[in-house]
């Protein structure tokens, strides 16, 4: 590099995003310090970094959320910047404040912009003033149940309870009837407290079955604020995005310009710097509403990277170092189609319960236009301490049709044994005619997959046959030699390999 942007960067995160940030630093020839809790000793991000420092025990509050210890570690290891990733401290204004005091650069927005946008209530009001359309609802956070009740009456049911500090669907509840309001507020507060350390929640009108469309924004110190087009994130389960894509099938070129301009207006109104994302709800009439601005790199940033050719994490680091947004980024255009699937450690066949355990076998899919952002390897023990996102699978293809085809193939080739993942569920979602038709709304999963069943019966014979050989080849498990053969198996396949989803498990 002609000029070194930073001397050394501490990456204040774990999992795939810590790995992603470390890779960007390597590209820029900047050494990195990884931090890890005792649960993450020898995790992938600790191995990739130039240095790795144990920061505390597994509970996040004693390790990844302990910003004082993190800033001290950065100073002690001669770092001059901290990258927060997403989640954990990434949207906590205390970190940029502590960084400033310690003369470290925080790779992200100012504490002020973060505080404004982190408060969903205040930012709603601010953006309404700036002429950006917002969703009807509370003008302040709710103090007691009566305020929620009256606000709900005014907006009309269904309504949505949201964490003021929220994000990622945590501390969020839809309420259809007055009877459920109190318990939902209670549950949302509990989740918000646990996830963000802040139990403030508020209420707004629930927009039924919208699309969730967001715009990537970049802003530098030189007066440039730009957007890098949209990401459609409508396919969600429990308000958690599971599949993201770009471009959105819903946007016309005119709407794209209109929403992109609104996103830039939001960033400017907030005095925003660095990378951020402006989220909109997009209803069936084609109206859009400002939802919130996320003041960090998003989980789904790779689909933007694959279609625009921009390296967003590199730009984050450059902007934080006071550089101008790169010229090629200012001129970036959309090209082709990209889709991301989040691979969660969860049992999609059993009410999406979180799954934990050792990854006994692991193999990533490969091929042109396939990208895996992973925080795990074979042998990684997935615990219960952290978010269940294991990896992200991203594909690029010239057209949406080819991208869907490539993603299905890649999901089939992505192997995880030992823990349950959402791969098969993703394959079913992507194969659905309504997904292929681009009819993706936030109720997509609920509507089409609430009674999903997977028929494993036709595959059991094959599974047993392979298991028999696996055992014979030196596994430690000892099979029973049963006394006598029984009659015909009830598991006979209908035809070889015709493994489908017919009977409910």
């Amino acid at each position, binding site marked *: 590099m002609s000029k070194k942007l930073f001397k050394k960067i501490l990456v204040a995160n774990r999992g795939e995003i810590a790995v992603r940030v470390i890779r960007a630093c390597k590209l820029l020839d900047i050494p990195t310090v990884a931090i890890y809790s005792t649960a993450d000793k020898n995790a992938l991000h600790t191995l990739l970094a130039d240095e790795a420092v144990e920061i505390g025990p597994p509970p996040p509050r004693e390790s990844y959320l302990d910003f004082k210890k993190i800033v001290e570690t950065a100073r002690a290891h001669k770092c001059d910047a901290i990258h927060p990733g997403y989640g954990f401290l990434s949207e906590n204004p205390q970190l940029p404040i502590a960084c400033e005091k310690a003369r470290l650069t925080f790779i992200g927005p100012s504490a002020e912009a973060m505080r404004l946008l982190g408060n969903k209530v205040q930012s709603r009001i601010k953006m309404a003033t700036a002429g950006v359309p917002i969703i009807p609802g509370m003008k302040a956070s709710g103090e007691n149940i009566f305020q929620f009740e009256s606000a709900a009456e005014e907006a009309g049911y269904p309504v949505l309870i949201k964490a003021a500090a929220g994000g990622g669907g*945590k501390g969020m509840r839809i309420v259809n009837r007055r009877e459920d309001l109190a318990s939902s507020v209670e549950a949302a507060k*509990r*989740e918000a407290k646990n*996830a963000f350390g802040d139990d403030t929640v508020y209420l707004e009108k629930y927009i039924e079955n919208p699309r969730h469309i967001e715009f990537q924004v970049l802003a530098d110190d030189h007066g440039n604020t730009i957007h890098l087009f949209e990401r459609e994130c409508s396919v969600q389960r429990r308000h958690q995005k599971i599949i993201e894509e770009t471009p959105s099938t819903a946007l016309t070129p005119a709407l794209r310009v209109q929403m992109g301009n609104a996103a830039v207006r939001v960033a400017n109104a907030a005095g925003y710097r660095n990378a951020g994302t402006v989220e909109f709800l997009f209803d069936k009439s084609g109206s859009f509403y400002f939802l919130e601005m996320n003041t960090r790199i998003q989980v789904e940033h790779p689909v933007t990277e694959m279609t625009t050719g921009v390296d967003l994490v590199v730009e984050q680091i450059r902007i934080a170092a006071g550089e101008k947004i790169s010229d090629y980024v200012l001129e970036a255009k959309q090209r082709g189609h990209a889709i991301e699937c989040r691979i969660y450690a969860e*049992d999609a066949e*059993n*009410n999406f*319960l*979180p*799954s*934990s355990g050792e990854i*006994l*076998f692991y193999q990533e899919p490969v091929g042109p236009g396939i990208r895996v952002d992973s925080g795990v390897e074979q042998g990684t023990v997935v615990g*219960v*301490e*952290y*978010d269940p996102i294991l990896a992200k699978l991203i594909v690029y293809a010239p057209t949406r049709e080819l991208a869907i085809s490539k993603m299905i193939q890649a999901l*089939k080739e*992505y*192997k995880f*044994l*030992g823990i349950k*993942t959402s*791969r*098969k569920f993703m*394959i079913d979602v992507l194969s659905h005619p309504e997904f292929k038709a681009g009819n993706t709304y936030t109720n997509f999963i609920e509507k089409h997959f609430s009674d999903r069943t997977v028929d*494993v019966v036709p*595959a*059991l*014979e*094959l*599974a*047993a*046959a*392979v*298991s*028999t*050989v*696996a*055992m*014979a*080849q030196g*596994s*430690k*498990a*000892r*099979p*029973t030699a*049963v006394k006598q*053969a*029984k009659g*015909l*198996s*009830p*598991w*006979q*396949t209908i035809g*070889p*390999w015709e493994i489908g989803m017919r009977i409910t*498990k």
Partner: protein
Amino acid sequence: MINQFAYNDETVETRLKTVPSGFEVSVGENIYLVSEIAPGKFQTHLNGARKLVCCVVKENRSYIDIDGMLIELDIPSDDGNMASSAAAHAIAKDKIFAPMPGTIVKLLVKEGEKVEAKQPMVIVEAMKMENQVNSPASGTVKKINFKDGEQVGTEIPIIELELPVP
């Protein structure tokens, strides 16, 4: 040699024969030709059709991936019981276990209460998400072993049911 595997409350039997190209496994009326092409990766043939399958066996449980679909088969131990507790849990409909270690957020039923199948019984928090656990069957709540706010593992059932005699 005859091997037995269990999936939920069903069992399947296989017979293994070594052949020069790998193994022949009889399952029901079918004969599968199976060979390991790399650790954990198997090539199989049935009636000329070919399929690649990943499989790892660990602690009396076999993990199989077929085109992204995961199947876990239990390997009964010598005394005929399921060695893995998860397997045992999957079959026992009268005991409600936590899906994974976590915290009891709220119990939604009381001892002595009659419950329907699929009725919500308890909310358990794990991995930052609240997970609702539903009743696997209709019956009566016989015993509750935990209180709200307590830590729960996967060894002791949270709730024990009394099922009606079929």
